């Protein structure tokens, strides 16, 4: 059966349910959120329809600027760390035996699906004073006594890298599996060391893939909302945490919605950039 354009009205039948679901429960909520971002907040957590820009005006405050700056910096640092570890790792993984690849993929998928709450709990345990890694350091004589390593920026950064690394590997995996193995073989035959072959042949060939991955991981990290709360201090809160906090605890829905709309705009422009970077690969 060839693909053909729908001829009769009934041919559109299968589309009705999915289209209705997506429009009612994704497009309309999205539109509701945008509408609420222009609403006026009332006392006691309520809000009423209006058309004001006050909620967006609050972006101009120093506090918001700090949170935004920190969120972007943190997401960038996490993305850079993940790509730095992920590219060589995925490259080596794609050259491993099929059985080894499958074992790693199962492990990575399991960690990727692990709840952010559980990742936060696991890291707070590993970095705790009583059950943490510092006990091992103390035992080895590297440290005088075990100590708690949370809350700290390092803890937030490490746990977020932990959370995003499986995602990074899974994004890179398809491109690296398809990478022509003769490329590195040629470099090796011509006398390049494995390191040289990797940095001078593999990395340049994947430049756009790496850039696109960097952006996707950046967006992923931007969405982290629990780890900064569980492992960091209030100054380590990100935009996602602030949105949740405003919506749930401060009951300021209009302001939360305005920040969410802003986050959408940032993410969408970045997705556009990632898609553009991906396209460049085909052209090259």
């Amino acid at each position, binding site marked *: *059966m*060839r*693909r*053909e*354009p*729908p001829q009769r009205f009934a*041919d559109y039948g*299968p*589309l009705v*349910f*999915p*289209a209705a679901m*997506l429009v009612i*429960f*994704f*497009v309309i*909520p999205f539109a*509701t*959120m945008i509408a*609420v971002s222009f609403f006026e907040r009332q006392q006691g957590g309520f809000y009423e329809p209006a058309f004001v820009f006050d909620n967006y005006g609050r972006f101009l405050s120093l506090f918001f600027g700090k949170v935004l700056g920190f969120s972007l910096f943190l997401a960038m640092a996490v993305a850079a760390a993940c790509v730095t570890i992920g590219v*060589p*790792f995925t490259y080596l993984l794609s050259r491993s035996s099929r059985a080894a690849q499958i074992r790693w*993929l199962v492990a990575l998928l*399991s960690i990727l*699906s*692990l*709840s*952010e*709450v*559980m990742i936060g*709990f*696991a890291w707070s*345990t*590993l970095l705790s004073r*009583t059950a*943490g890694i510092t*006990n091992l350091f103390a035992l080895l004589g590297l440290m005088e006594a075990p100590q708690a390593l949370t809350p700290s920026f390092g803890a937030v950064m490490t746990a977020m890298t932990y959370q995003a*690394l*499986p995602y990074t590997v*899974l994004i*890179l995996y*398809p491109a690296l*599996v*398809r990478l022509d193995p003769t490329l590195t073989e040629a470099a090796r035959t011509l006398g390049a060391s494995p390191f040289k072959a990797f940095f001078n042949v593999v990395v340049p060939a994947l430049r756009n893939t790496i850039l696109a991955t960097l952006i*996707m991981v950046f967006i992923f990290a931007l*969405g982290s909302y*629990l780890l900064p709360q*569980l492992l960091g201090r209030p100054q380590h809160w990100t935009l*996602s945490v602030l*949105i*949740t906090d405003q919506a*749930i605890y401060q009951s300021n*829905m209009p302001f*939360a*919605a305005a920040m*969410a709309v802003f*986050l*959408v705009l940032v*993410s*969408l422009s970045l997705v556009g950039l990632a898609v553009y970077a991906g396209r460049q690969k085909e052209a090259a």
Partner: protein
Amino acid sequence: MIVLRRLFFVAVGLFLALPLIVVAGVSINEKQTLAFPPQGFSLSWYGEIFLNDDWRNALFASLTLAALSAALALLVALPLAWFLWRRVAPWANIFQLLGIAPFTLPPVITALGLLTFWATSGFYGQPWTAVISHAIFFVTLPLVTLSLGFSAIDRSLVEAAATMGADDRTIFRTVVLPLILPYMVSGYAFAFVLSLNEYIVAYMTVGFTMETLPIKIFNALRYGYTPTMASVTVFFLVIAALVFGLIARFGDLPKLLGAMGEGR
């Protein structure tokens, strides 16, 4: 070189495993202490998941939510993926884009959108709203696996059936369905496992009326530590590893993931 490569794998493996090893360790402590290496040995904290009413209810809520929302996600994705495969209708691609969007954007956005929606429509806090919310949030997964499944179907098979006089319905039931069944199963499994672990969307939609396991852990964390958190984490990790292990055993995981990256 081989040594270096092995060392790198070990280092990444350790980084990924360390927090989980410690959690597995504290989950078998005999007393309610956060100690590693564990003091004594007891599996009672695993029993607690099923014997303690609060934890059992949370587990039951999570399993129900995951089973129902993954089914609904599949029901949304299947006709859409079929239509996109069967028909030439470029404008219909917008629905595929809508299906992928919630998964690509930061989750807090979808969560807040649904919160404002359920609050405005007056259904806020009803358990079924979480099922719909999760189904929409995770529809990407069955959609991507099914699109892959359809693209793998040899069209000449379908053509042969059509030439022999089978109509769309018969072809779907006898030819298409058996071929995409494995992709339906893996799409469902991906959505199920992710829904089981999801926190923010569930919290924003039904967080005040219902406790799923991730919500329960987060709430419990505020009051301090109980080893049940550790045993639940290990339990969920085992479920995920089991599900993905089964997919790898009966399906082609590298192929599935190779194409999933492409769908993004």
